[in-house]
């Protein structure tokens, strides 16, 4: 009986209808959190003593970095569930997470280099975290591209899941080795991590931004997955019923 419940969780239609109801209140909350977090961080948090106003990009940059990494594991876990229990929905979530992951890592890299210019005087520094984010972008891209070039959807899902799972073993190794490489080559550079403390007046808006980003990530994941469901289930009766006149506006959601 418990398994029946679990398999209903894997049904695209169930997900589509359930999230359709959630979105009504979840989307406004996410937008509100983002607006409050950004306004607080960008306009009201105090100016940094060393970096001036340029540090404020941390409110956009840092939560994106956190989610890029967390998203990789979410993607791999979704792929693993799809492989083990042979369900369709987790694969759709996996694909959505890969595409969104590309966007978030790209955002992290871009904001990082914008922040790097006033701080280090260059847009690209061979910094451990920079390189790691770039590699993470490659990992996401390889999964998105592999999924697109495969002729058969089911096969594409399975191979992407295998690649994502092998990637999870590798991500910590890549992280550690890049970090190690960096410590060998740049012994005397500025370190932001570690003991440098952050004043509560900056920390609270940062925490709020992280929460807002988590909501934003979830929201985009839900929206993309819903779109993916419609595309893949286009031939089923329940999607056909959605597309009938009078209900088009729901389909776009």
């Amino acid at each position, binding site marked *: 009986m418990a398994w029946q419940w679990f398999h209903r969780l894997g049904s695209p239609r169930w997900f589509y209808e359930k999230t359709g109801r959630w979105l009504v209140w979840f989307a406004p909350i996410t937008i509100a959190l983002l607006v409050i977090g950004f306004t607080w961080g960008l306009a009201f948090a105090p100016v940094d003593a060393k970096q001036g106003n340029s540090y404020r990009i941390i409110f956009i940059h840092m939560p994106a970095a956190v989610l890029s990494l967390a998203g990789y594991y979410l993607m791999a876990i979704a792929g693993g569930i799809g492989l083990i229990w042979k369900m369709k929905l987790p694969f759709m979530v996996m694909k959505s997470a890969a595409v969104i992951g590309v966007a978030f890592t790209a955002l992290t890299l871009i904001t990082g280099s914008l922040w790097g210019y006033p701080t280090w005087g260059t847009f690209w520094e061979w910094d451990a975290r920079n390189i790691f984010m770039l590699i993470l972008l490659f990992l996401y891209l390889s999964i998105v591209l592999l999924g697109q070039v495969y*002729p*058969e*959807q*089911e096969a594409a899902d399975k191979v992407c899941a295998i690649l994502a799972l092998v990637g999870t073993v590798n991500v910590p190794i890549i992280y550690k080795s890049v970090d190690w490489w960096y410590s060998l080559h740049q012994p005397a550079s500025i370190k932001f991590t570690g003991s440098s403390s952050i004043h509560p007046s900056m920390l609270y808006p940062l925490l709020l931004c992280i929460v807002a980003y988590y909501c934003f990530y979830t929201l985009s994941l839900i929206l993309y997955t819903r779109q993916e469901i419609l595309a893949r289930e*286009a*031939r089923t009766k329940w999607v*056909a019923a959605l*597309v009938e006149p009078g209900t088009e506006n729901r389909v776009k959601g």
Partner: protein
Amino acid sequence: MSERETAEPVELAINGVSCVRDGRTLFTQLEYNCPRGTVLQVLGFNGAGKTTLLNALAGLLPCSEGEILWRGHPIRRSRAFTAEVFYLGHQVPVKPSLTVWENLHWLARLRGQAVAAEQGLQALAQVDLDAYHGALCRNLSAGQKRRVALAQLYLSGERLWILDEPFTAIDKEGVARLQDLLQQHAERGGIAVITSHQALELPGLKNLNLSDYQPLDAYDYA
């Protein structure tokens, strides 16, 4: 003959199988039972899913719906089943830079069979290749290469033969001999599932036409 067949237990059962490729349903609700001693020819127009069905029967592809049973057990990931299948697709697994004998030996080795010299030469003689046993396969014609692979059938102890277009590039005499072999296999109680564009002359040959299992609503709102 027909009395014996109906009394035989069903060995290969296709239960409500549907296959979807590239978002297109090839066939749906396919039902068929093969008792011992069946030679089944799968028919259908190009692209009807003959090869897909054969791949599914060999356990290489998952079915979208339904299941295939071998002696009452699902075939996917079953060691006991793969040990009883001989599959030959439309590609010929023969390496150009190995000799005829090496290829024969290697293919048998993959099936878990060690071939003695005499046994191997006999099999090659059945496909008219005994004189070529030391020749490199790159020097053979397409039909000869296929016959190197088909020689496995004379060594095979497998119960279920799945052959995709086995008569391609085979001359008239070879076709007749292969038909004889299929009949012998059926008389031994084996099952053979084949696709072919040729009309076969086998007593008791069964036909399965995939056009009968086309989905009705496949293109309703494409």
